[in-house]
């Protein structure tokens, strides 16, 4: 896909007077500033900052009788906590920080793309691949910590010892392809939705993209949920004890 700089990145480049460089093979040699070339990273950092700010606001005034902001935060945290305890048998609280961080990060990045002129982080494969790699490293680490190094990798070999030479490479392949499917699902959904909304915008800019953007609201939420659900399922598969 050719790279289109978002309107916000173009505006900020002009406002701050950033230098534009021709990026060679990246974007057909057109001159782009650092901010325009990597505006998905800009969106990702912005999502992280917004998350931290919101959490700071919630944490600053914790009350026994919660205000509106705290109620919404408690709703989200309780939802995630229930999702974890439904799927993971022991110590499910331990995995709440990563899952909650992913929830806010992916959700905000999905929704930044729907604001006209804003760049979207998850509409670029680099961001979703980073998320998937973090999750991959996380559940492998916790699997090894929970079960022990040898036992964790031995359970990929399957229960029958003479099938192990066949099973082990296949299971490792399946494990590695999870990174690809986990990241491409989110990226493809968000990027595809943007492309369709863009085509509708090209047909008639005034009202035609609106239905697609409503679909984008819905799909952004659903894809966040699916991303989190798969994260939880991968973690629960890695840390499960076979009694």
């Amino acid at each position: 896909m050719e790279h289109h700089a978002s309107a916000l990145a173009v505006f900020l480049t002009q406002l701050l007077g950033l230098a534009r460089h021709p990026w060679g093979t990246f974007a057909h040699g057109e001159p782009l500033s650092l901010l325009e070339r990597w505006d998905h990273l800009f969106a990702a950092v912005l999502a992280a900052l917004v998350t931290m700010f919101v959490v700071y606001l919630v944490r600053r005034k914790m009350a026994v009788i919660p205000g509106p902001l705290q109620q919404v935060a408690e709703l989200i945290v309780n939802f995630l906590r229930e999702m974890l305890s439904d799927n993971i048998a022991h110590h499910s609280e331990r995995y709440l920080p990563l899952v909650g961080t992913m929830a806010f990060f992916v959700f905000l990045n999905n929704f930044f793309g729907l604001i006209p002129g804003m760049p979207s982080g998850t509409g670029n494969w680099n961001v979703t691949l980073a998320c998937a790699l973090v999750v991959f490293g996380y559940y492998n680490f916790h699997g090894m910590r929970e079960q022990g190094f040898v036992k964790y990798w031995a359970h990929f070999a399957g229960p029958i010892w003479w099938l192990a030479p066949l099973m082990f490479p296949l299971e490792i392949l399946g494990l590695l392809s999870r990174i690809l499917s986990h990241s491409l699902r989110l990226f493809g959904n968000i990027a595809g939705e943007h492309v369709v909304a863009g085509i509708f915008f090209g047909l008639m800019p005034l009202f035609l993209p609106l239905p697609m953007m409503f679909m984008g609201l819905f799909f952004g939420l659903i894809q966040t949920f699916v991303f989190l659900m798969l994260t939880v399922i991968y973690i629960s598969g890695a840390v499960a004890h076979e009694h």
Partner: protein
Amino acid sequence: MKKFLFTAFLFTVAVAAFAQGAPEAANASFFSGKFLAHLSLAIAAAGCGLGQGKAVVAACEGVARNPQAAGNIRTTMIIGLALIEALVIYVLVAAFAIK
């Protein structure tokens, strides 16, 4: 059947004529990579629609028989739909990759 074949023939001729009418698009032949990518996306979407339809039918029947299990069924259905949809998403990414 005859009518369908005739329509398909007419459509093919029309597409070919359209491709001929745009000489500046050198890559717009019938079997260019881009055309095949879009065609494969259509085929994948058709299969995905059938599969997701079956999944949703089963989930609706389950909820109608046992409304108390709606939450669990919904979660399972959404995961299943996401896994089915992933196959189309791969084709979509491949269609993006082919210029």
